[in-house]
C-alpha cells in the first residue's frame, strides 16, 4: 500500500448496537456498552 495510508466498519455495530446507554448528543461520543 505504497500510495495509501489507512487511518482507520459500521456494519459491525448493527447486531450489537442500539442499547441506548450512550450519552445524548454523534461524531465524538463513545459507546458506553463495550
Amino acid at each position, binding site marked *: *500500500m505504497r500510495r*495509501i495510508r489507512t487511518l*482507520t466498519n459500521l456494519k459491525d455495530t448493527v447486531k*450489537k448496537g*442500539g442499547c441506548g*446507554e450512550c450519552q445524548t*448528543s454523534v461524531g465524538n461520543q463513545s459507546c458506553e456498552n463495550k
Partner: protein
Amino acid sequence: MLHLYKNNGYNIVLDVNSGSVHVVDDVAYDVLDLLKDREGDRYGRESRESIIPVIMEKYKDESVTEQDMEELFGDLRTLEEEGSLFTEDTYQDGVIDFKQRQTVVKALCLHIAHDCNLACRYCFAGEGEYKGDRSLMSFEVGKKALDFLVENSGSRRNLEVDFFGGEPLLNFDVVKQLVAYGRELEKERDKHFRFTLTTNGVLLNDDVIDFANREMDNIVLSIDGRKEVHDRMRPFKNGEGSYDYIIDKFKKVAESRKQSKYYVRGTFTRENLDFVKDVLSLADQGFEQISVEPVVAGPEEPYAIREEDIPIICQGYDELAREMLKREKEGRGFNFFHYMIDLSGGPCVYKRLSGCGSGTEYLAVTPWGDFYPCHQFVGEEQFCLGNVDEGIVNTELRDRFKMCNVYAKEECRKCFARFYCSGGCAANAWHSHHDIHKPYEIGCKLQRKRIECAIMMQAACSDGEF
C-alpha cells in the same frame, strides 16, 4: 460512497458507509476520483484501459510506471474486498425499522428558570422568557419530571438531566434539591444520573463551584471570546458588558475542574466572522475545552449568518485547524468541540442514524411542567408534547420525531457527513423551513466543513508529527 477532499496538504478519502479513512498520494487520489462514480468492475480491463493512460500522462514527469498503476489497482481492490472502500449502504433497506423501534426517555432538559440576569442580543429564549412570562420551576414540578424520567426509561441505566434556562442559578436552591432527590432515586431504582449545568456565570460563587464540582458531570460556561465581542452581545439589562464580571470566575471553574468536564461555549454571528480570534482568545486565557458556534437566528436578524458568509467562515475553520495543530505541537493544545471526532470507535449505527433523539428520548421541561421536543422548541405551542402530570399526550407529534432520521431527509441520504451529523438539528430545520425533515442548509455546509477539518487533524496527528 466515497468522499474525497484535500485539506492542509493531505489527500483524504472517507469511505462513508464503513467509516474507514485513508490518506493517499496525488496519484491514488486522482485514480479514486475517476473510479468513484464508475459502475461495474472498477478494476477490470476496461476501467484500467481508460484510466491508466490518463494518469500516466498527467504524471509523466514523475516516472509513474504501468507497474506502479497495476500495483495501485491491486491495492484498491484489496481495500474494497476488506470492506474499507466503496462500501454499500446496507442500513437503509429495512435493517433498522425506525417506526417500530422501541424508544424510551433517557434525558431531560429542565428549564429551571425562565428568567435571566443578562439581556443577550441573540438569545433564542428572548432574555430567558421563551415568549412567555418569567417563571421559576418549583421543586414539585422538577420532582415529577425526574419521576417521569425514571418511570419511562425502561431498562436504561444512564439518565441525563440538564439544568438550563434562562439562567439556572436564579433558582439554585431548587437545583440542589433536585440533585439530592436524583441521588435518592439512583439508589432506589438502580439508575445513574448525569447532571449538567449551563450558566452565564453572573451568580457563580465558591459555594456554587463546590457544588458543581461534586455533582455536575459537565458544566457549560457561556462566553463569546474577546471582551469587545462578548460585551456587545451579552450585556446586563442596564447595557453594561458582562465580560469583566465573569472571566475570572470561569477561569476558577476551569482550574478547579482540572481543565476537564466543562466547556466555555460562545456564539459567533456575522458581526464577528473572524471568530477564530475569539476561539484563540479563550485559549490564550487558559481554557482548554472550547466551543464557539454559529448563531441560530431568523434571516431577518442583522446578526444572522447568511449564505454569503459561508466562504469566510470556512476559511476560518481551516485557519483554526492549522493553528490548533501548531499549538498541539508546541505543547499548548486545546480541544475544540466541533473538531473532536472519534474515527475508530464512536457510537453504533442506530445512534448515528437517529441523532439526538429530541421528542422521543430527550425532552425539555418548562418551569410549569410542559414537555417539548427540546429547548429550542419551547415557546412554540404546537410542539407541546404533554406534561409531568399526564405524560406524553401528543403521541402523533412524538411519532413524527421518532421518524426523524438520516433516511427521512432527502438531502442527508446523499451527504458524506451523515454518520457524523445524524441528519442535523430538528429545531434548526423547523426554524429555517417549518419542516423538521428539511435540513438547514447553512448549518449543513458548516458542519461538512468542520468534519473535513476534524478528519484532517486526525490525519496530521497520526502523521508521525506528534
